[in-house]
């Protein structure tokens, strides 16, 4: 909301404060200040002047040449407005002045020099479209800055009000804040009218409308509003329309009470029935849009057809027009939730609905309607033609007990009694001493005050938190350990960064169409109200973000990349499940920074990284052919623990990488593990095993293994036939090429034998080796001839 300071000055004397001081004081007492600005600062060097003479331009029929006195000096101004007359008081920008970005300079019009230009209300943003230059309707001192004379030099403070402070959405509201801050008094404008019984209004209301107050006025003349009112409305960010509409807006900004004015001749009788809408009922609003209503919407009707959408917007049919002669003024109070539901559903937010949603004072309806009527009669010549007619009641004022010690306890300082009393009473609360504190009556406009703690906050924010001394609490050391997933995340990040992988963070949102381009197997949870298609699905797997990251980097010449991400992935179940996942992606060189290492990534080195992670969990894992159809079958596997799949790794399908992610000519290695599963399966208790004091025996075997035979089979045979002393089988070399028959590869393993009871004899080991060799032969594996 925009607060013109000169307007505030009508109610509270702020002449001893500058706008920045006010802004600072407001912001430190809970009214957030967005900006302090001077809306007419785009005009410089514009002065009041008096036209001394007007002459025809010798060479142009459409121009006149004037002499204008500005202070002591006389200037020659050429203008196209031929209506100007000698003796008129005008506003003129002289050469050297500025209008927006336009610098005003001497300019020749058909040979005649002009030392500036006249200003119209359009240039002052006080009129939509000006036909003539602006004239004062009374003599003014000349040579004065126009901003000063027209009061356009006052600051506007823009405030952002928190959701609880509907009472501050007005000049009165902000004045009340300043009253408490500076402990000053407020003067409210007088509002007196003469009611009569020329006409009668019938009002009936129902649930959703707390109070409805109306008044009829006759002999209205629709015309422009006075300049000062337009100025204030413009400064406050509203567009002047006509006197009646402007006055309803003006009084709303002044009091915070939304107001509606109907053309009384267009509502068909002086009857107002406030009722819930019928399902399917339709109404065309002031902005021309037709809305279809449901049963929870509240309508203002004439008993038959709807006139307005209560508290939100008037209807087109009964709106004020240039022909309006009679008006029915509405000052109502509607239930915040009813208004909010309708406004939200229809996607409409107006100055009126915004205020009703936050709560409007039900106790000031008579004052507001009188204020309204007195201004309308003053500026449109209208006369009151009915009594103020009222339905509903102002709600009961609530009383709260406030304990002095409670104030001190919450704020952490002893607040002097006089301060508490002065602050609350300046904020409009009525206090009566009672027991260990006060009985406090809450003003009706303070919808947000319902509990004792609310009063404590009122005291604190005005008293000033800079006065509260800082203390450190004594917090006992926690007996709880760090949650296991936090520990796991930290550990994984440590291992992966040390392995050369960079951590990335991607959106949890995805474009579902992109997911489908990779595989139809995913069924991501969908958001009901996404920002856009790109952000509409929750990631069912972490790989999409990593692939996007790879694509982004690949296209920017970062072709060697090792990245990982840890975060939640989501499953489309009733509750929308989520679990913690870690995913890795690598492409390009094995060690990009190491010029002595020319290797590109291989399935074995990538698998090694996966295994390093798995080994952290101390569980037996195995690999099976991958079930993901978007991995290359030749180099991909599922990771299995205790018969359960916990993840996968492999080379990403090259065709999809190219088509969907624009990565080509480079293999993408990708892996994902379910961290929640790993935590669940993790071996938590590790006990010490006695390390044997007897020497170990190592034997190397170079084996010729057929291509089709997996090493896991070879290993299985070795362990099955090695006897009880074999403790490990370790691959130390793989060789293909010279000396190796076609269809075979050589795998060299080191076998370790160990006994915890005695030193192993050569015979024992040799017989085990013989056993192994014999059994391997049966599977087609032979010793390589040395």
């Amino acid at each position, binding site marked *: 909301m925009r607060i013109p300071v000169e307007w505030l000055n009508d109610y509270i004397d702020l002449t001893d404060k500058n706008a920045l001081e006010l802004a600072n004081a407001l912001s*430190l*007492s*809970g009214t*957030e200040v967005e900006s302090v600005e001077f809306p007419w600062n785009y005009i410089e060097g514009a002065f009041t002047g008096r036209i001394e003479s007007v002459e025809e331009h010798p060479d142009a029929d459409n121009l006149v040449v004037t002499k204008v006195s500005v202070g002591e000096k006389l200037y020659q101004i050429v203008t196209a407005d031929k209506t100007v007359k000698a003796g008129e008081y005008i506003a003129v920008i002289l050469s050297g002045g500025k209008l927006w970005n336009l610098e005003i300079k001497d300019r020749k019009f058909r040979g005649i020099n002009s030392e500036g230009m006249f200003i119209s209300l359009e240039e002052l943003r006080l009129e939509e479209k000006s036909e003539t230059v602006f004239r004062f309707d009374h003599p003014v001192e000349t040579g004065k800055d126009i901003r000063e004379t027209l009061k356009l030099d006052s600051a506007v403070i823009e405030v952002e009000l928190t*959701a*609880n*402070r509907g009472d501050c959405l007005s000049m009165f509201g902000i004045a009340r804040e300043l009253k408490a801050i500076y402990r000053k008094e407020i003067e409210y404008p007088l509002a007196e009218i003469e009611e009569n019984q020329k006409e009668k209004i019938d009002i009936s209301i129902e649930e959703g409308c707390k109070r409805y107050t109306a008044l009829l006025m006759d002999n209205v003349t629709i015309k422009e509003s006075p300049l000062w009112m337009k100025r204030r409305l413009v400064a406050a960010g509203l567009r002047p329309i006509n006197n009646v509409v402007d006055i309803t807006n003006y009084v709303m900004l002044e009091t915070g009470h939304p107001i509606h004015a109907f053309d009384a001749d267009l509502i068909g009788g002086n009857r107002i029935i406030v009722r819930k809408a019928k399902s399917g009922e339709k109404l065309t609003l002031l902005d021309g849009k037709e809305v279809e209503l449901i049963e929870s919407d509240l309508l203002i009707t004439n008993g038959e057809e709807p006139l307005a959408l209560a508290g939100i917007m008037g209807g087109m049919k009964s709106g004020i027009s240039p022909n309006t002669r009679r008006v029915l003024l509405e000052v109502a109070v509607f239930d915040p939730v009813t208004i909010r*539901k309708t406004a939200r559903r229809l996607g409409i937010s107006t100055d009126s609905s915004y205020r009703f949603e936050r709560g409007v004072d039900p106790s000031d309806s008579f004052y507001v309607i009188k204020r309204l009527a007195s201004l309308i009669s003053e500026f449109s010549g209208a006369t009151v033609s009915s009594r103020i007619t009222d339905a509903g009641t102002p709600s009961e004022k609530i009383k709260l007990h406030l304990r002095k010690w409670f104030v001190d*306890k*919450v*704020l*952490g*300082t002893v607040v002097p009694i006089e301060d508490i009393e002065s602050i609350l009473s300046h904020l409009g609360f009525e206090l009566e001493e009672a027991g260990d504190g006060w009985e406090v009556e809450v003003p009706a406009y303070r919808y947000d005050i319902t*509990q004792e*703690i609310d009063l*404590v*906050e009122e005291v*604190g924010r005005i008293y000033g*938190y*800079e006065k*509260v*001394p*800082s*203390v*450190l*609490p004594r*917090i006992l*050391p*926690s007996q709880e350990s760090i*949650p296991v997933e936090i520990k796991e995340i930290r550990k994984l990040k440590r291992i992966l*960064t*040390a*392995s*050369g992988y*960079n*951590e*990335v*963070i991607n959106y*949890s*949102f995805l474009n579902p169409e992109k997911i489908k381009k990779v595989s139809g197997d995913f069924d991501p949870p969908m*958001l*009901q*109200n*996404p920002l856009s298609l790109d*952000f509409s699905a929750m990631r069912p797997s972490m790989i999409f973000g990593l692939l996007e990251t790879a694509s*982004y*980097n690949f296209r*920017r010449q*970062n072709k060697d*990349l*090792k*990245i990982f991400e840890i975060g*939640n992935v*989501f499953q489309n179940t009733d509750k*929308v*499940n*989520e679990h913690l996942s870690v995913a890795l992606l690598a492409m390009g060189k094995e*060690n990009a*920074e*190491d010029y002595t290492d020319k290797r590109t990534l291989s399935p074995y080195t990538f698998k090694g990284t996966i295994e390093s992670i798995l080994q952290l969990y101390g569980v037996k894992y195995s690999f099976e052919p991958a079930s993901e159809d978007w991995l290359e079958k030749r180099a991909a596997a599922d990771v299995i623990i205790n018969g359960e799949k916990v993840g996968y790794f492999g080379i990403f399908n090259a065709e999809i990488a190219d088509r969907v992610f624009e990565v080509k000519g480079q293999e993408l290695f990708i892996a994902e593990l379910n961290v929640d599963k790993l935590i669940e399966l993790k071996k938590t208790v590790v006990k010490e095993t006695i390390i044997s004091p007897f020497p170990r025996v190592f034997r190397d075997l170079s084996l010729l293994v057929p291509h089709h035979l997996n090493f896991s089979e070879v290993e299985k045979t070795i362990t099955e036939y090695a006897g009880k002393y074999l403790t490990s089988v370790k691959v130390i070399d793989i060789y293909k090429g010279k000396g190796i028959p076609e269809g075979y590869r050589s795998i060299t393993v080191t076998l370790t034998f160990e006994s915890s009871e005695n030193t192993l004899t050569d015979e024992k080991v040799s017989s085990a080796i013989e056993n192994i060799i014999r059994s391997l032969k049966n599977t087609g594996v032979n010793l390589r001839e040395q």
Partner: protein
Amino acid sequence: MAEPLIDLQSALEEIDKVSELSALQNIKAKYLGKQGVVTRLFKQLSTIPQEEKKAFGQMVNNLKKQLESKIAEKRSEIERRMREEKEQKNRFDITLPGAIRDMGAYHIVTQVMEEVQEFWLSMGFEIATGPEVEEVYYNFEALNTPEWHPARDMHDTFYFNSNRLLRTHTSPIQIRVMEKRNPPLAIFAPGKCYRKDTPDTTHLPMFHQFEVLYVDRHVSVGHLKGVLETFVKRIFGKDRKIRLRPSFFPFTEPSFEVDVSCGICGGAGCRSCGGTGWLEILGSGIVHPNVFRSVGYDPEEWSGFALGMGVERVVMLKHDIADIRDLLRNDKRFLKKFMGVNI
């Protein structure tokens, strides 16, 4: 007296010219070997008349000594040179780059989160976590934000259905912890949050937040101030100050926006703080009695403070990042730039 058979000067010069150990060995044999010139001179000694014997002997001895010392000197010279040549040959150019073992970088958001977490752990807070997919009750209702309350406008929320949503803040974790445990408690709750904001230079629809909750018997605004001051000094620097600006959050009362004094102008006002001298960094307040009621704590007996802070905001302030979206672009050069800044 017999003329010496050797010209000492030319012998010394001959040694000088030698550059190989083998050649030196030959010269040594030539003069000092069994058949060497000097040895032969010694053998002549018996033929020398008695009166000249002494002088001759001295002369030959002297000759031998000079040759020996010259050869030894030459030998060590050659050996030294050979050693140097060998070293030169095997020298490694220490100015060539090392074969760097590429370390990965922690994301800068993680780094700052860890730094913040360290602080709260050191203060005695424990870590708590909660789901990203939340129930409306935990995200709003239990936090004193009923349906249709205008405060819900501050949290434009992503929904799966009428009851499931993406949490808009880490505050639901407060409720989940308090439901399970009795006070006193001090928790730090980090996590991802989501709000329906179109990405721009200062907004992301997904961001990281942490929540701090402290509940004990006599917790006041003074405690909140004390803890915040310590926190800000640790994270932003010892010369930084804070101020509490009264604000509104449904789940705390009184509520505060917390500003930290601008690090660039020191509070005098500059461009980066919009001329105010202060930068808004987090929201906080005294836990609202209704929140305690919703978890079954007696608000007359217990009191507490809570605060919540966006991590991206701290990252941007600390590392002078102008566009928040850079944090999610994951350009390798960006990731590497923050290698080891905080961890």
